Structures are given as structure tokens and as C-alpha cells.
């Protein structure tokens, strides 16, 4: 297909689709949308390594594939390591003139479980070693591929099948692991958050992360109608509310410098975000108030780092 660039204000986006339609994602999947946008940002000079999870399962049932760029899946927890090897392989082969010298983006993709739980060791190792690669975490806040089990990225109070609310529990009793802070603590050149509800921001950040030499990490909140229990046409709205309520601020950390990308004069009440989702339906008012306070506290921590 011929590539065209469509202008939206100061930005342009390719009409070319590198993530082919016909994949098996649920209707309204925020993650599939994020993958599609990320691939548009990356173009064709790319090699992708994906962890086991929703994205791998919906895109690669033998003998079919949705990937129009080179793609590899091996295991669940080793995506950052596989990508390290891809980068090292290209580096060695290009240096030894066994391959022509050109920049090929090496990109790892994994879900929140593959990133903040089972894959965190391999990710930390790859970040510390300083490989030239981009890591995209598609965070849908639980193990959705296996059927909504809690991960360390599941937010406080949410229903999951392994941390269900009951007579003695409100569901998830821990606060979401701050993966962005953990990655930023590795002092890598670029860390950012993104959400497909803000497509140009997402495309910009993926491009920037790929272009920058050294490790880069973009944490993408990927609303999931199946696991979050909301109506499939609300994905974009939910993602927007996550940003507007401050529970998922959009910011970036470039060479250690924090920058807020969307900063509203006033945050919307967290209730507006929670009440659209069945996974929070059971929460009493006092729990919602507790979440409200936590969100504000965390949001201002980020703002303080940004100096705004």
C-alpha cells in the first residue's frame, strides 16, 4: 500500500497500517489501538519482540499474522532480554559488515504483567545495560489474556478474579506499582506515559523513544472493556478521564527532566472515572474518597518533579 501522510495540525500520521485488521482483539480494545498507533509512529525499519499476552494471542494465530513488520514472540518474562539480543545482534553484524549499516528500531512490547511482575528482572537488566531499544508497556491493569487476574499494576479497589471483592475484602488491596518511577530510577534517556485517547501525544512519544539512542520506555494505559467492565464504545472516553482525573497523568522524563504533557487547571473528581467501570462498582463512598486523596497526592508528586 502506498504511504501517505495525513496532516493533523502541526503533526502528520501515516495512512499505512502495519498492524493488519482482522486480528482477534475484543471490540473496543485500547491495547490494539495503541499498537496500531505505535506501529504508525515506528514505520517499517523496526523489529518487534512481544511478550506472551493479549497482543501476542490476538495477532499471531498460526498460520495467520497481523504483523506487517518483523516480529518475534518467545516467552512471557524475557521480552527485554530478547530485544537486547536483537539489538546486540544487529550491532555486531553491522560492525562486522555482515549487514548494511542502518538504524533499525528494536522495540519490546509487553503487558503490565509481563512488565511489572514476571518481566521486571529482564527489563531492569536491559535498562541497566543500556541497550539502544524502546520498551512499550501496554497496561490494561490485570492479566486480561488469562481472564482478569490481578497484577501489581491493578489499581486499588478494582475487582479481578484473583482479588475479588467479598465480605472480607474490597478487591485489590494494594496500590498500583509505580512502574514509571521504577524505570526512571534506572536513569535512562527517555521515559514517558501515554494513552491511545491522546493519539498524537502517543505517536510523538513512541517516535521520540525510538529516535533517542539508548533505552527508552513508554508506559501506555490501555483501557480494556472486557476486564474493566465498561461499554465497548467508551474506551477513548475512559482513557481521557484517566488523564483528566489525574489517576494517569501524561508526562515524560527526558534525560532526567520531568515534563507534564497535559495539565488541567483543575482535576475532575475520580468518581467520574470509577463509576463508568464495573470493576469499581462495589466500592463504598469512603473507599472512593480514599482513592481521591491518593490520586491527588501522587499527581502532585509528579507535578512537583515537573516544577509546575
Amino acid at each position, binding site marked *: 500500500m502506498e504511504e501517505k501522510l495525513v496532516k493533523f495540525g502541526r503533526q502528520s500520521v501515516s495512512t499505512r497500517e502495519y498492524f493488519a485488521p482482522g486480528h482477534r482483539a475484543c471490540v473496543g480494545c485500547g491495547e490494539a489501538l495503541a499498537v496500531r498507533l505505535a506501529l504508525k509512529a515506528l514505520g517499517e525499519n523496526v523489529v518487534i519482540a512481544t511478550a506472551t499476552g493479549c497482543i501476542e494471542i490476538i495477532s499471531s494465530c498460526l498460520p495467520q499474522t497481523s504483523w506487517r513488520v518483523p516480529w*518475534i514472540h518467545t516467552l512471557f518474562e524475557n521480552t527485554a532480554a530478547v530485544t537486547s539480543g536483537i539489538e546486540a545482534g544487529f550491532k555486531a553484524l553491522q560492525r562486522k559488515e555482515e549487514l548494511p549499516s542502518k538504524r533499525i528500531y528494536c522495540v519490546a512490547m509487553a503487558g503490565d504483567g509481563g512488565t511489572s511482575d514476571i518481566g521486571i528482572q529482564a527489563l531492569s537488566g536491559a535498562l541497566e545495560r543500556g541497550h539502544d531499544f524502546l520498551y512499550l508497556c501496554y497496561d490494561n491493569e490485570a492479566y486480561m489474556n488469562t481472564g482478569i487476574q490481578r497484577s501489581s499494576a491493578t489499581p486499588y479497589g478494582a475487582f479481578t478474579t484473583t482479588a475479588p471483592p467479598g465480605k472480607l475484602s474490597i478487591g485489590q488491596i494494594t496500590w498500583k506499582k509505580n512502574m514509571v518511577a521504577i524505570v526512571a530510577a534506572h536513569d535512562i534517556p527517555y521515559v514517558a506515559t501515554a494513552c491511545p485517547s491522546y493519539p498524537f501525544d502517543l505517536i510523538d512519544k513512541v517516535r521520540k523513544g525510538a529516535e533517542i539512542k539508548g533505552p527508552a520506555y513508554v508506559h501506555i494505559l490501555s483501557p480494556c472493556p472486557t476486564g474493566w467492565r465498561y461499554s465497548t464504545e467508551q474506551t477513548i472516553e475512559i482513557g481521557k478521564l484517566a488523564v483528566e482525573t489525574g489517576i494517569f497523568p501524561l508526562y515524560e522524563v527526558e534525560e532526567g527532566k520531568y515534563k507534564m504533557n497535559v495539565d488541567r487547571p483543575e482535576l475532575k473528581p475520580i468518581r467520574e472515572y470509577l463509576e463508568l467501570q464495573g470493576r469499581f462498582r462495589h466500592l463504598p463512598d469512603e473507599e472512593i474518597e480514599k482513592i481521591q486523596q491518593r490520586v491527588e497526592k501522587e499527581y502532585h508528586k509528579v507535578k512537583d518533579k515537573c516544577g509546575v
Partner: protein
Amino acid sequence: MRRVALEGSFAAAEAARIADVDVIAAYPITPQTHIVERLAEMVADGELDAEYIDVESEHSALSCLLGASAVGARTFTATAGQGLELMHEVLYIASSMRLPIIMAVANRALSAPLSVWGDHSDAMAVRDSGWIQVFAENSQEVSDLILWAFRVGEDRKVLFPVMVHLDGFHISHVTEPVLLPDKEEVDRFLPPYCYPLPLDPDRPVTMGAYGPPEIYSEAKKAQEVALRESKEVILRGWEEFRDAFGRSYSPVELHPPQGAKTLLLTMGSFSETAQLAVDQKRRKGEDVGLLSIRLWRPFPFEELSGAARDAHTLIIFDRSISFGGPGGPVACEVKSALYSEQRRPKVVSFIGGLGGRDVSQKEFEQMIDRGVEIVEKGSLGMYETIGIRD
């Protein structure tokens, strides 16, 4: 070709250097560490132009090499014991995705209790992982088999990863004279690695798609057929090696070549001690021989049954236990390989040499005597141990 005194570990590193590997990813673990330390030195000194990745675990070591191999890089790593166990699920990916990674395994016992010393428990736990596997008897074999492994594993008709097992400490830490070929000689034997469908932006491929029930069985059958058929290239690789460097290898070895009434069977470095025991008995006029297995996977059924056919008694020595199972894993394999043969020897199974425990020449002689006695009495049990206190 030059003759140098080398520790078995350094012989492994030298072979990887001469093969001009592109990417090494490794994690330290005794008794393998000397191999990758030496490689790291070579890279630091510019003797080897490779990317050396200091990973944070063995799981990541092998995972890195999946990626590197998939873009067309020649890859090498080494591990042992717990490290090999931590790699376990990655082993299956390498063989099933047909990525010809070459790995030296300095065989080590498995915890608990913790033991850094040698036996074959680590190797036996990965027996069915789909890798081509060979056991070396000495440092010369380590170096030769690693060079051969690149030649065979990377062959387009094969494309399987290869494990070269060397006994922890008994080979890895013993200095012996080794003949090392020059790079020019090796370049004639070993063609450049050319992976048929690498990850390449100019020719996008999907690797590692999942297999639904309609496809998985066929994929596994194809893998099994391909591994069995790799035997042809395995044998040709040894012929080419002989032509290039003058040393011959075969899937099994029989000493003396015509066989004997009573055969001792071993695998790995203990074969050399076992041979001393056999020679001692032969000097006394006993009709005893040694059968050693070098090719462990794909299993050399034909060669093994051919070599054992005329023996009356086959005494098998294992360096690991199949807990609650039929005894030594090697004995178990050999028994099933011989079961359908019309003429087959009586098989006696011994277990010893666990966690670095030495087995002396005298103990091998005792094993032979006891094996003959067991067969004469007709009291073939599951197995007996040697050199282990009750």
C-alpha cells in the same frame, strides 16, 4: 594448528573465538564461569569481535541469544547446573523455533543440598528439550565438538541448537594439551552463519506465532522428524572434521573395536578412567570392553545396538538418579533402545559419581566384577550404587 596446554573451560572459549561468534550472553555460575570469563577477556582485548552481554540471569542469557540468533548472528553461551535449570523453558523455544545457539554445559549437580560439583543431573533434566546433545571426554573433545556444533547446528538441513556437555571440574578445571586449529583452517570447515529467514525489515517475517490444536501436533511431529534427520549432517560433520583436522568422532565408541563379552558403558569424562579399568582387566585376560556414548540426542539407536549386539553383559554407569524411577537415566535409555533387538545383552545399572564424588579405576573394576556376578546369579534388580555409603 598449535598445541597448547589449556584448561577445558579455556578450550571451550578458544573454540568459540575461532568460530568468530557474533554475540555472547552469559551469567556466571560455577563450574562454567572460566569459559565466559575467558571470552570476556578476548572481547576486551580485541581478540574477538563480538558483543558480550553481561545479563542478569541465565534465563536472560539464553533469551538474549534467541533474539541475536533470529537476526542472523552466530551465538554462544555456557552454563551449568542451576543455570541450565533456570533456562529450562527457554531451551524449548530455541529448539522449537530452530535457532542454532551453541552452548557449553559444564555439568553440575542440582541443589539441594547445594553442590557446585559435577554430575549429570542437569543434563538429564533437559534431555527432552529438543537440542542436539553431545558429551565430551576431555578438553580436546570440548574444543573439537564446539567447532563441530556450529558446523552442524547452523546447517540449513538442521537448524537446531547444540549443547556440548563437559563434566564440571573433571574437564572444566583440568589442564590438558589441546590441538587448536588456526582461524584459516576453521574458515574452510565452518561456513558463515546464514539464517534462512531472519528478522529483517526488508523481508518481514512473523516468528513464534502460537499454535492452535489444529497445528500444534503437526509442528511437533515436524520438529521430531527434523531432529532425527539431522543425524545425517551430524555424521557428515564428523567426516568433514576428520578430513579437515585429522581427528575422528562417532556417535558411540567401542574399545576394543571388535567388542567384548562384557561391556562397561559410560558417558563423559569418566570414560577415560573406565578405560583404564577395562585395560587392566584385559591384561589379566578377561574379555571386557568399554562402550562410550558421545551423541546423546538424537539418540544413536543403530550404532548402540550394533556395538552391544555381541556382548553378553552390559554394565551401565550413570551419574544421576531418576528419583522413584527405574534407576540411571542412561541405563533406562539403553534398555529401551535394546528392547526390540533379537540379540541383546543383559543390562546392569550402576549409579555413582554424584555431586563431584570421584569414581576410581578400582571402583570401575569392582563394578565390572559385580555386574558379571549379578548376571550370573540372574538377580537383575533396578540398579546398584557404587562408592555411596548406605
